[in-house]
């Protein structure tokens, strides 16, 4: 059971980083990203390709993957400068995400197509003894997660963070106050892209096999749920939201052991209902999420 908890905690770590990215771009910056799944796939595949086909180390592969996703995100934000309304921007990001997903699915020579890429080695797996490796792996992932929260918090509380919130509330006012909208939007989306690339790389290391079916739009749905449940704009809240989603998804599998007579096909239907009901309850009793966005206050 302990091993399973450790493994699910690993999933929570990179899911939380993905949700942090969305929170940074949308919660703080007001730029909703419906292309999250495609960008996530880009990060995972880039890392896997560098390791498997170019024999690069895990650190350089991860950093390059982060950079690639960041550049793509910056490009998206630059070409969509005229599309300032949230709805239209969301549609553009959805289109980009779908494009990336289809490239990954169809370019067999690079990505393995529908077969995907397998045999992705985990960092230091040949050095650390296998019986304690998973604990080292978790410690590393937890460290990375908290480091990301730390850095994002610093950014959020800085002058740049104030600019982000100004753009989120009203970009016209921010522009009239002399803020460079193009540069700010590009930075917001690019920094979020770094986190998405990191989450994708961590996903690839964890599963050691990636295929296009792992990056469907349900990924975006879970990230949005984590941000809303945790509290839009709150980084620690997003981690709590990710934990809640994982508890609902994986914890509900153990219902069979609690409810006697519950068949396996009934359980699969009940789980989906529970996940939906759980989220509705969170929204009723905690409509602003578990934690509030940080606001500087004068006492």
């Amino acid at each position: 059971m302990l091993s399973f908890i450790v493994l699910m905690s690993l999933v929570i770590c990179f899911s939380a980083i993905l949700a942090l990215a969305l929170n940074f771009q949308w919660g703080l910056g007001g730029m909703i990203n419906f292309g999250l799944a495609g960008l996530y796939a880009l990060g995972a595949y880039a890392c896997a390709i560098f390791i498997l086909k170019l024999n690069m180390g895990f650190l350089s592969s991860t950093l390059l993957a982060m950079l690639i996703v960041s550049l793509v995100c910056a490009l998206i934000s630059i070409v969509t400068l005229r599309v300032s309304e949230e709805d239209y921007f969301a549609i553009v990001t959805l289109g980009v995400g779908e494009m990336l997903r289809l490239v990954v699915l169809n370019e067999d020579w690079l990505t393995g197509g529908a077969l995907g890429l397998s045999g992705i080695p985990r960092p230091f797996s040949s050095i650390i003894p296998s019986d304690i490796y998973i604990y080292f792996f978790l410690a590393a992932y937890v460290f990375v997660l908290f480091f990301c929260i730390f850095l994002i918090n610093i950014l959020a509380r800085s002058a740049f963070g104030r600019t982000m919130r100004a753009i989120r509330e009203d970009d016209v006012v921010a522009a009239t106050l002399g803020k460079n909208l193009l540069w700010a939007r590009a930075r917001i989306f690019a920094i979020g892209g770094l986190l998405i690339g990191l989450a994708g790389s961590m996903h690839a290391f964890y599963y050691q096999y990636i295929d296009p079916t792992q990056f469907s739009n349900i990924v975006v749905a879970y990230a949005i749920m984590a941000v809303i449940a945790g509290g839009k704009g709150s980084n620690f809240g997003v981690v709590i939201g990710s934990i809640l989603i994982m508890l609902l998804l994986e914890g509900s599998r153990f219902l069979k052991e609690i409810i006697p007579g519950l068949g396996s096909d009934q359980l699969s239907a009940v789980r989906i209902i529970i996940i939906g009901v759980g989220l509705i309850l969170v929204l009723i009793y905690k409509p602003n999420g578990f934690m509030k966005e940080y606001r500087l206050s004068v006492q």
Partner: protein
Amino acid sequence: MIHIKNRRKTIKTIGAAVASPIAMPFLNLAHAQSSNIPIGVALPMTGNAGAYGPDMAEAAKRTTELINKSGGILGGRKLQLFIEDSESSASVAANLTQKFINVHKCQSLVGYWGTPEGLSSRPIAIQNKVVLMVSSAANSITEGDTQGYVWRFQMKATDWGTVIGRSLQKMGYKSVGVMGLQNAFILPIMRSVEDQMKGSGRTVTDSLIYNPEQPSYRAEVERIFGKKPEVVCCFSLLPDFVSIMKEVYRGGFTSKVISLSIAADSEGKFLQAVGPQVAEGIRHFQPMPDTSAPGYKRFTKLMGAPESKLFLFPPNTHDQIAVTALAMERAKSVQAVDWSKQIINVCNGPGEKVDDIVEALKLVRAGKAVNFEGAGSTCDFTNSGDQLGRGMGQWIIENGKNNFISYEKP
């Protein structure tokens, strides 16, 4: 800027969070295990393949009950199933596999209908030295060094193409169009059919691969059917095949259509979705058990169904559970590292041919050699874990009914 006091608190929190996983192995959190032998069963109850999971689960339960009622294995130990929904998803299946291994301590994992589920769980099974038995067709499942832990209870994808291609030639079609879903097990089938058609001097008018989950397949249908081949091979899954056939009907195209039963039947769901007019004349193929074999007839009785009822996938699950029990009994061990080596012995022989799992277990307990003949096939395997002896059925939809035509082996 973070206050100095808060910064220290933050660093302490991070340090504790990072240190706690390192401390975990030193905590003694072992719990007592029962004498039951756990088997993990991952089946698609929802998603693209959700139509097949419930019957496969029922087959697993009834086979397990039969074995347990006849005394279990290894001195009376009972098999215990943990059946979960794989949601037709690779990452869900991988998480399930971890749960089976780490929570329930399963040494045998069965079910795994789809290729993505099998491929994502394969490295986990090999790393943890547990046996993985799949019903997936993609060639890559058993490629490379599986160390004897991965076993396929299904016909390989390239063999599907061999049988379909041969049937097309027998039917006398001179021109064929081919379209298929971008999917790991469909691509080898498509390539095999095209190669056979070209090799026998027939014309492949066009060939295309389409993406899943498109809102419309009109452009693809126009391209392939528009060239008016005599027959179009459309290798799909149910959702896209429904969409394609509606477009074909709307467009008034007259080419004959050949598909797979997982698309054109899917336990009756295709006919429900499109109606008899759209489905009229479609031929479909699917690997299936030999319904005349005594092992299959015994299975239908176990399921409480008439002998004429066709089960495509549930017999595989029956065989997976049966082979697990036999191999464990033969090895006198529940550890996969021991009994995986006995799978070929109990399935291929040499030994007494037996199709009843209860009789087979009695013989193995008595120290006799057996050659188990399962419900889904003769249960013979290559050393790489591929199943031999499974054939393919052909049906045609006429007047809203699926009519069986033939059964053929590759």
